[in-house]
């Protein structure tokens, strides 16, 4: 008997259908020599300092131009490890499926998971599947917990930033959130609008080689660049940031679409863009390193750390005015990752 075309409550029962789903669909796609058998827990070994992170994915719709919830579930969690200076090694994955979810769609998601994991060089070594009744869940939710090994002894932290440091961005902003919104609302904005969902580890690894000159990195996901920059200096009594609005790389389609929708590209979520703070003298080398990667081609400096307004991010606008760049407020775009 093959797996039914749609997920049923019994697929999450722990019984025969659960086992069938795991053995015939999940395991063939994600199984590997790290867990040669289906056990309750999987052993793994990492030398030295390790990092762990967890993230839950509820994006609506689960499939969008440039990726799907599976791609996001791998890259998102691995990016959280990477920006902390860790090489992603192992992941666990919890699936919450809604009764009636097409099995073919689940297969597509799992194939994306496998492909994304291979791209980052991370292995999914444990998992769980639950099914909720029809109408009680958004089709598919997933959670991944990631473990990574430290690239070195240097700890990246907002506490490292100093006056005069350079603030860099790895690529053009705003495409993920807009792609999700356009797809969900059926906005005919343009076929070029794709999520930027991508692994940041190679970029992070390259920058980490700068040693102590690399102060801090953070991927600019929910809340966009505005949120990350604010979190970087929040509560800091000596340092704030001075940022130039026109320095940000923004694609034509993102600029046009966000203008049309009344959104600020700096507040829109990204899934393959990060902010890095480096010592001023290391900035040009950092940019050269970033630009060797396809997704870092447009990397550039967007501002500097300043003592003028401690704890605040000041934006120099396109017309040369100055204002606070605040944390995004209100619900801009729900369920984007």
């Amino acid at each position, binding site marked *: 008997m093959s797996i039914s075309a749609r997920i049923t409550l019994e697929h999450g029962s722990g019984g025969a259908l659960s086992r069938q789903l795991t053995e015939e669909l999940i395991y063939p796609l994600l199984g590997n020599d790290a867990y040669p058998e289906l056990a309750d827990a999987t052993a793994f070994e990492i030398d030295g300092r390790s990092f762990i992170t967890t993230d839950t994915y509820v994006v609506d719709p689960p499939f969008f131009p440039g990726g799907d919830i599976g791609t996001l579930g791998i890259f998102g969690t691995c990016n959280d490890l990477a920006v902390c200076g860790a090489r992603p090694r192992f992941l666990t994955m919890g699936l919450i499926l809604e009764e009636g979810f097409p099995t073919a769609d689940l297969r597509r998601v799992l194939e994306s998971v496998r492909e994304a994991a291979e791209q980052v060089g991370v292995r999914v070594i444990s998992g769980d599947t639950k099914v909720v009744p029809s109408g009680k869940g958004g089709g598919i939710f997933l959670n991944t917990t990631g473990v990574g090994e430290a690239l070195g002894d240097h700890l990246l932290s907002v506490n490292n930033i100093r006056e005069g440091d350079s603030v860099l961005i790895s690529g053009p902003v705003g495409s993920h959130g807009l792609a999700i919104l356009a797809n969900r609302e059926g906005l005919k904005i343009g076929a070029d609008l794709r999520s930027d969902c991508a692994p940041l580890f190679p970029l992070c690894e390259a920058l980490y080689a700068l040693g102590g000159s690399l102060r801090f990195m953070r991927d600019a996901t929910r809340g966009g660049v505005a949120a990350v920059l604010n979190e970087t200096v929040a509560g800091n009594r000596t340092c704030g940031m001075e940022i130039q609005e026109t320095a940000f790389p923004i694609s034509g389609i993102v600029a046009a679409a966000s203008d049309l929708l009344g959104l600020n590209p700096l507040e829109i979520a990204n899934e393959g863009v990060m902010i890095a703070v480096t010592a001023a003298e290391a900035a040009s080398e950092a940019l050269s390193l970033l630009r060797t990667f396809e997704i870092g081609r447009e990397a550039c400096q967007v501002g500097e750390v300043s003592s003028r307004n401690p704890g605040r991010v000041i934006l120099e606008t396109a017309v040369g005015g100055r*204002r606070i760049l605040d944390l995004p407020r*209100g619900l801009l775009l729900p369920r984007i990752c």
Partner: protein
Amino acid sequence: MEVCGTHTVAIRRSGVHSLLPDNILLVSGPGCPVCVTPTSYIDNALNLLETGAAAIVSFGDMLKVPGSDGRNLAGYMGSGRVRIVYSPAELIPIARDSTEAVVFLAIGFETTVPTVAAAFLQARRAGIENLFLYTAFKMVPPALRALLASPDRNLDGFLLPGHVSVIIGEQPYIFLEEPGGVPGVITGFEPLDLLQGILSVLKQVIRGERRVENAYTRAVRPEGNPKAREIMEQLLEPADALWRGFGRIPASGLVLGHDHRAADAGLHFSLPPLYNAEPPGCLCAQVLQGRVLPTECALFGKRCTPESPVGPCMVSSEGTCAASFRYGDAEP
């Protein structure tokens, strides 16, 4: 003074205010519709809801404004009897599908009024009888008159609202050219529009002129939009209105005309008349008249923030206090 809330936000967001020399101060006026609506209006709407008299439909910002006891309509969002609309056209399906009376919180300036009027008239033509309007519409020119008439006024000119002017045109501002008037320039919303509007006001001030000028000709025709005004006039007629921060201003509101009075929620549900009462310590009333800057209010950024607002100027996305809080007040 920029009269319009959208101007306030555009100025702050583009940082235009930080580019001006020290002797030019932009103050925000009464151009945020949520902000000029009295607290007692919220109390009456809460009362309609809580007595089961009607379901409430509103634009989003209004729901977060605290009533006189601090409660707001947003607290009832989960009940299914409070709905947010982005376009008045949504009123038609909502009223049609509802089994109870539906009251729309009809606030807004001349920009918003025609779309509400059009939706209401369309609902009537479709035979929908359970839709009521709780009107607190306001008109901009009477408020400008009130500001000019104030004995201690501190204004040298107006940036006149671009969107409102698209509807009403230039003529309703002509009283600004009379003795006691000040320069008034109809202004757009892009940074260069704003700078051009400010420059035009300054030129008039230097030359000692007081003229109504249109610096937003790509959107505003001298005669405005007669078709939109015709739709307003089919449904509504001028009446005195109570403004938060100002009190009663003659002929500054719009209420349902004689033929449609049965749909007036205030009359139908015998709602008590509106009055002005401010929360203790809240200076929104003075902020709306441009007498006090948001940062001069002791509550600003402390007890009153966008997440937990005390007064309406901190609630509305177009509110003066919210804009100051978000984008900073002077050169940061």
